[in-house]
């Protein structure tokens, strides 16, 4: 054994705490973001062994260039009709978000979360998957649910927790759930959905089904143990699942360096499990579509999971409870080098000759009207603010399949309480 050390001869340690490039008062600075040109990142075959495509986790799959052309090997070559359909959903999503955000500000609900700036992540995936592939989303994929055709009306009813809320007012706004639309109940507990998606995919494989699963997590929540469990299980059983990491640079007030993004990319997590990893421009809906389709092909061929890091930017506050002005430079969103996903698709469609500014303005106006109309209908069923809820008795239902005695008793007590309050 070595002798007792001379501590004086050893260097002093110090704690490194990552710090974002800018704070309130600073000018936005994205010089650390390496914007690889569209078309530059190669496209391996979707059957490529993970190790042989390791470099992909440090690349950046981009299809739409600044001019609005779709270039390079990842171009999914979608028809103008499909492109337009995607545009419509993205616009609807943004308008919907705006309306609901305002509704919260008007006291009509408790809470709201926008997906502004990240619409391509959700909508691109919807168009690349089959409608019966199963989604385990977080709270920023409303675009996907809209793309699948889930009625806006039901979404609003839920946001308002009103009499028409399919979830009986039990859940926060935004935590949608729809078995019919193959959309799992969104959880408030970050990360939990990721191993669940893997379990669903394992079940599909156990049953020799053909449906695959996809899940989304923010980059911040990749630090949760559940993300690791998901990657481990997905790797071990080669589960047919797409693990999407939406790196929107921020997790409430902490920048992606606090989640581990300073040392490497989030796509690089894939290397640790020997699974395929792609890093893509999340504001480029064609890149999202192409990467999702690639990963879906791989999964359907029993070649296992893919981690896709969507490099994007949370353009607005984390939620209605948050004020980003307190922790990041004021105009950071405008300086974001990958642009706005709606603008980029619009430009592409115009470039293709399938679209123009007038039609876009019209679409925008129409969408606002349409969403407003639905909103008026929804509000007829009540809002959280005016407290038009489901019956109090419903609170005791669905805790168990059959109500046990103690809940039945409590329901009776609760009814007595209503009675007493009235008198």
């Amino acid at each position, binding site marked *: 054994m070595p002798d007792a050390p001379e501590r004086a001869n050893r260097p002093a340690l110090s704690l490194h705490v990552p710090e974002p490039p800018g704070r309130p008062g600073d000018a936005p600075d994205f010089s650390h973001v390496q914007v690889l040109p569209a078309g530059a990142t190669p496209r391996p075959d979707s059957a490529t062994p993970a190790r042989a495509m390791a470099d992909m986790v440090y690349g950046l799959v981009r299809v739409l260039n600044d001019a609005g052309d779709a270039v390079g090997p990842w171009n999914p070559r979608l028809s103008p009709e499909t492109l337009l359909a995607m545009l419509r959903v993205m616009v609807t999503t943004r308008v919907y978000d705006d309306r609901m955000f305002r509704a919260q500000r008007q006291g009509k609900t408790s809470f709201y979360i926008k997906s502004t700036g990240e619409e391509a992540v959700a909508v691109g995936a919807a168009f690349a998957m089959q409608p019966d592939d199963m989604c385990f989303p977080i709270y920023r994929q409303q675009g996907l649910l809209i793309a699948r055709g889930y009625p806006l009306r039901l979404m609003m009813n839920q946001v308002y927790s009103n009499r028409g809320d399919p979830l009986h007012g039990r859940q926060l706004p935004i935590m949608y759930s729809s078995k019919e639309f193959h959309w799992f109940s969104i959880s408030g507990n970050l990360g939990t959905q990721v191993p669940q998606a893997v379990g669903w995919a*394992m079940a599909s494989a156990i049953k020799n089904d053909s449906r695959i699963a996809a899940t989304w997590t923010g980059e911040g929540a990749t630090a949760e143990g559940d993300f690791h469990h998901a990657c481990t299980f997905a790797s071990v059983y080669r589960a047919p699942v797409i693990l999407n990491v939406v790196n929107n640079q921020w997790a409430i007030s902490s920048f992606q360096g606090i989640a581990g993004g300073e040392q490497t990319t989030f796509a690089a997590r894939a290397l640790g499990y020997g699974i395929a990893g792609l890093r893509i421009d999340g504001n480029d809906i064609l890149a999202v579509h192409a990467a999702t389709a690639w990963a879906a092909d791989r999964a359907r061929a029993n070649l296992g999971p893919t981690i896709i890091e969507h490099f994007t930017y949370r353009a607005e506050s984390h939620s209605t409870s948050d004020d980003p002005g307190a922790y990041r430079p004021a105009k950071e969103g405008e300086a974001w080098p990958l642009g706005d996903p709606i603008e980029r698709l619009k430009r592409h469609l115009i470039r293709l000759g399938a679209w123009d500014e007038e039609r876009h303005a019209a679409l925008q106006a129409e969408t606002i009207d349409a969403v407003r109309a639905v909103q008026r209908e929804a509000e007829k069923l009540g809002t959280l603010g005016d407290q038009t809820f489901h019956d109090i008795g419903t609170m005791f239902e669905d805790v168990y399949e059959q109500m046990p005695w103690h809940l039945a008793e409590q329901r009776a007590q609760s009814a007595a309480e209503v009675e007493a309050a009235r008198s």
Partner: protein
Amino acid sequence: MSTMNMIEALNSAHQIVMERDDNVVTLGEDVGYFGGVFRVTAGLQKRFGKHRAFDTPIAESGIVGACVGMAAYGLRPVAEIQFADYIYPAIDQIVSEAARLRYRSSGDWPMPITIRSPYGGGIFGGQTHSQSPEALFAHVAGLKTVIPSTPYDAKGLLIAAIEDNDPVVFFEPKRIYNGPFEGFYDRPASPWSKHPASDVPEGYYAIPLGKAAVVRPGEAVTVLAYGTMVHVARATAEHLGVDAEVIDLRTIVPVDIETIEESVKKTGRCLVLHEATRTAGFGAELAALVQERCFYHLEAPVERVTGWDTPYPHSLEWAYFPGPVRLGLAFKKILEA
């Protein structure tokens, strides 16, 4: 009928349910090829294939998380957590997810998951192979918690748990896997084959969840127990000649309040018994319920006989474990009160 110990009975439950319903899959650490460190899942992989009975990585939360996804698909996963002491990493998936999904989705996503785990002390397992964490699960709305005390019950309750459409935490008292333990650690152990409840039908039967069993009728005092403690209670009552009515709760949530009330109203005295630490243990719930519902029949306060409020020790296990002496003193106290 066969003579089965509790392990064999639990294994038989798996075999039967997996045969009847190919949506049932079994997973956990060492449960596949090897058949589980306690052999409860022995032979399942061979019989039903690797896709229906398999080993998992060592990640309890991953196991339960995967089960939630499998249940969402439509399977009925049965997960083994190797020891109840290792269930803590999985608590978020159990409490925040499995337990609440039916509610959260207004019925769209029921969670027919069974989480089995050997629990309890008496095997010199030290701090991490001896714990009884049932109270934590009892507190969580949406979960059922089941604890058998005999091979017969173990099989019937496990079948019911797997067939139940809600998540069930199923704790198996490992001290009595091989034979009942009456708390006299210094006397030779008897195997299940000497006990009538080891006569176990080979075929299908289910014991409804939420129903207790009066395993020893009596007039002087009601003892509420589950798991290993049922045997300690019965033996101690015999031994001391106490006319105790011993109730094996079998399911702690939902608890069989009717059987409890009926008994306590008859005896006027109630003693609750568990291995877990006392403070905020399930015994507190039982004491609270009994005094709420039988107050005017009670002739003495409800007594709690439990493990001490310390971590589970290794060498001093028998000074920790609520055995015949502790129970005897409590009988004395409550009967003289």
